[in-house]
């Protein structure tokens, strides 16, 4: 055992690994009632009786055959890092399926401890499990654990201590006689090939420890031979041609004997063992398997009302986010402005600080804090709504409902989950595409995630929506969200016909049972996301506001009379002609600067606008209670048509720097550049089309035809690239 032991939490998806991880380490990782919440391993520390232990939370896996990237993460960690103890978390309400992974871990010869979660659901479904009996069959400790906020960890910590100091070797799984004979032959061949180095984990070996280690090594050798029968590429590649031929002969003999694929033979036999075990230790008090979740699904997934319920739920999410946050936005904004701008400004004047420093601290930084404060209510409510959807188990059902549309755009229904996560933030949404098995689907889904308006775009929609359409702001915001989805679908359709011509991967997904979301879990979930948002957005917004203020002060002499013009104004004015077709006049250079700041973080758009529109014509003319910047924005945009075009541009143009970095990390530079260029070009075309249609004049036809032509050019190019790709492959 290491001086600082490592414990890995392993189990099927959605069994409560992250909940246990949080309880053991005091961490606040996101949990949810849908498969694929954790897509990479997370590490935390815990202390038992003055001993530091590292706890690793691994992504949920159904088996140790490497499939999707999240499954590969879990498998390679178990195989390469060799943790001192594996806590196998097993869903008691679905014991048979969960034991498949347990059996594989047993075959691996890893030191194991089993924790049975979801005992309440098992009891409600009429199941009772004789846990002691189960443990005696498995050869290691198994204990039940109620995973709620009053989780009693004392029994578990004692069991962990015991398992670490007295590791037990699990029972060996035997296959049928003929399979065993061939397995033995493969084992002999691979031992001769020297595939299995014996790693010593014991620091001071005793006779017992050595014997246990030898047994564990034997189990591991056997496991590798089993993996060869299953056709594992990683191990097959380690054999030379002669050994491979011998092994292939043995595998063919197994296949002939059973009339099945070799992998299926092994899986069938494992389930044979599991069935016998489950029959022995599980008692079913109710014969019928109709559960509460089945009854709810009958309605929620119904062909007639499933879709209206789906749209109703989505609309409710935005209605809550907009309506509930409306009164809070003005309250928080005015309170923070009073404190950080007015009072701080007055205090700094009293202290006789230089005017520029007073402006920087009170107006720029204080104003920035007030801006961030105003974002919090809508984002808080949208995160609460998403948390309820995730914790209740509706997320997986939404993927099923959406599958029909997703197929039309060339993606499997499972890709809907990353897209739904995109309502919170695009970065985790791109990461969530790791749950998709096919690389094609992962890239495709990642390209479409920015079409889903993230939480950071909501403040921009709310700010401009309330300003230009005070009576119908909720409809405008919902319309923008829906428009993003429609544009995503159209892009999907286009990419399906051009770059991604192959069929989408197979859709196989488990429908988790419905849970009543607890207030504690929702608040924890929301707090975790909101804290991340405020810290990340706060830093970016303050930085952007500082830069903008500095660039506003630094000026250059321009023209014949050498009049000094701020650098920011010059840059904005240089870019604005490009935005003229979508209704941004040359005098409205502040809008261009706001869009550039949005490349750092979308939330920065509002802060930049509030900062840049402080000075202007409207400020002196209008004496109403509306803030100065609001009046200036209205004057500068001139019409609702240009405001709508601007909002659509914000919705569609390049994702923020963090999302682009994640795209680069997951899929490489090529796809990142494609997403940036395509989305920005699309945003320009669509915004121009909308503005020219709404404010139709004699020049509009020229712009509309230009947009259509430009789009046709993109389509033809993408189709040619797709065709070349198909020919090459």
């Amino acid at each position, binding site marked *: 055992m290491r001086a600082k032991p490592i414990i890995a939490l392993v189990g099927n998806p959605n069994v409560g690994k992250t909940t246990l991880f949080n309880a053991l380490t005091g961490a606040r990782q996101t949990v949810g009632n849908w498969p694929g919440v954790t897509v990479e391993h997370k590490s935390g520390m815990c202390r038992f009786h003055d001993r530091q232990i590292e706890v690793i939370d691994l992504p949920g896996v159904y088996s140790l055959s490497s499939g999707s990237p999240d499954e590969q993460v879990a498998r390679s960690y178990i195989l390469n890092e060799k943790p001192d103890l594996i806590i196998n978390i097993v869903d008691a309400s679905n014991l048979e399926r969960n034991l498949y992974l347990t059996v594989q871990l047993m075959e691996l010869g890893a030191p194991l401890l089993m924790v049975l979660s979801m005992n309440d659901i098992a009891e409600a479904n009429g199941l009772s499990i004789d846990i002691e009996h189960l443990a005696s069959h498995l050869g290691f400790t198994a204990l039940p654990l109620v995973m709620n906020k009053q989780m009693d960890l004392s029994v578990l910590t004692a069991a962990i201590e015991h398992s670490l100091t007295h590791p037990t070797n699990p029972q060996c799984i035997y296959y049928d006689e003929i399979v065993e004979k061939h397995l033995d032959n493969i084992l002999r061949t691979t031992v001769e090939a020297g595939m299995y180095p014996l790693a010593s984990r014991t620091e001071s070996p005793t006779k017992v420890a050595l014997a246990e280690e030898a047994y564990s090594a034997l189990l591991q050798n056997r496991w590798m031979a089993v993996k060869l029968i299953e056709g594992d590429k990683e191990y097959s590649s380690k054999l030379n041609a002669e050994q491979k031929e011998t092994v292939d002969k043995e595998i063919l003999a197994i296949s002939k004997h059973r009339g099945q694929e070799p992998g299926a033979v092994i899986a069938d036999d494992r389930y044979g063992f599991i069935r016998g075990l489950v029959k022995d230790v599980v008692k079913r008090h109710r014969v019928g398997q109709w559960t509460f979740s089945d009854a709810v699904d009958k309605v929620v997934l119904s062909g007639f009302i499933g879709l209206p319920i789906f749209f109703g739920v989505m609309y409710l999410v935005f209605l809550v986010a907009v309506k509930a946050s409306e009164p809070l936005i003005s309250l928080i904004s005015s309170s923070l402005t009073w404190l950080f701008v007015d009072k701080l400004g007055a205090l700094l004047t009293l202290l006789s600080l230089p005017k520029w420093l007073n402006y920087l601290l009170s107006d720029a930084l204080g104003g920035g804090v007030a801006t961030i404060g105003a974002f919090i209510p809508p984002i808080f409510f949208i995160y609460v709504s998403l948390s309820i959807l995730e914790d209740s188990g509706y997320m*997986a059902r939404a993927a099923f409902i959406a599958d029909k549309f997703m197929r039309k755009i060339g993606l499997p229904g499972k890709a809907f989950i990353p897209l739904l996560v995109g309502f919170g933030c695009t970065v985790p949404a791109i990461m969530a595409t790791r749950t998709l098995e096919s690389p094609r689907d992962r890239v495709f889904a990642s390209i479409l995630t920015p079409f889903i308006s993230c939480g950071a775009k909501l403040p921009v929609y709310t700010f401009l929506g309330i300003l230009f359409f005070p009576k119908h702001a909720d409809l405008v915001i919902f319309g923008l969200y829906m428009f993003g989805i429609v544009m995503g679908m159209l892009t999907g359709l286009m990419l399906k016909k051009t770059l991604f011509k192959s069929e989408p991967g197979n859709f196989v997904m488990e429908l988790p049972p419905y849970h009543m979301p607890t207030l504690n879990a929702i608040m924890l979930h929301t707090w975790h996301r909101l804290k991340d948002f405020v810290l990340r957005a706060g830093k970016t917004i303050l930085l952007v506001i500082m830069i903008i203020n500095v660039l506003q002060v630094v000026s250059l002499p321009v023209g014949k009379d050498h009049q000094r013009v701020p650098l920011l104004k010059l840059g904005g004015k240089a870019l604005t002609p490009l935005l003229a077709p979508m209704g941004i006049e040359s005098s409205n250079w502040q809008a261009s600067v706001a869009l550039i700041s949005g490349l750092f973080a979308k939330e920065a758009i509002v802060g930049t606008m509030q900062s840049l529109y402080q000075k202007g014509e409207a400020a002196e003319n209008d004496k109403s209670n509306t803030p100065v910047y609001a009046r200036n924005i209205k004057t500068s945009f001139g019409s609702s048509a240009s405001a709508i075009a601007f909002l659509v541009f914000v919705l569609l143009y390049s994702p923020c720097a963090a999302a682009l970095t994640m795209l680069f990390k997951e899929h490489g530079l090529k796809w990142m550049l494609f997403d940036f260029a395509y989305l920005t070009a699309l945003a320009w075309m669509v915004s121009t089309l909308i503005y020219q249609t709404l404010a139709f004049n004699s020049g509009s036809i020229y712009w509309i035809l230009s947009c259509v032509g430009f789009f046709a050019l993109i389509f033809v190019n993408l189709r040619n690239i797709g065709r070349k790709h198909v020919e090459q492959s």
Partner: protein
Amino acid sequence: MLNNRNRGRLSRFGRRFMQRRESCPCASGDCLSLTDLPSGEKAIITCNKHLLIIERGLYQGMTLTMHRNDSDEPNVIVAVGDARYVLDRRIAREIRVKIV
């Protein structure tokens, strides 16, 4: 004319002759594709070659219940033991079952 028994023998000989693996241990007519199983019906899996699906618990001999099978939808929902799965119709088509 060949009877069913001899037809089976002949096809097994042909399969061996062509060195093809046996497709399914289920006489023709006894089994149906999972996509043909009506909603609410219970069936036993007689043939499944997808390792990924077998690992989820849909192994040969397991009983499943079809929860939802609308021909205009790309997926079916099945109950296997205590789990509920959404299965792609393309995969479900290749799984053979026998109604019980």
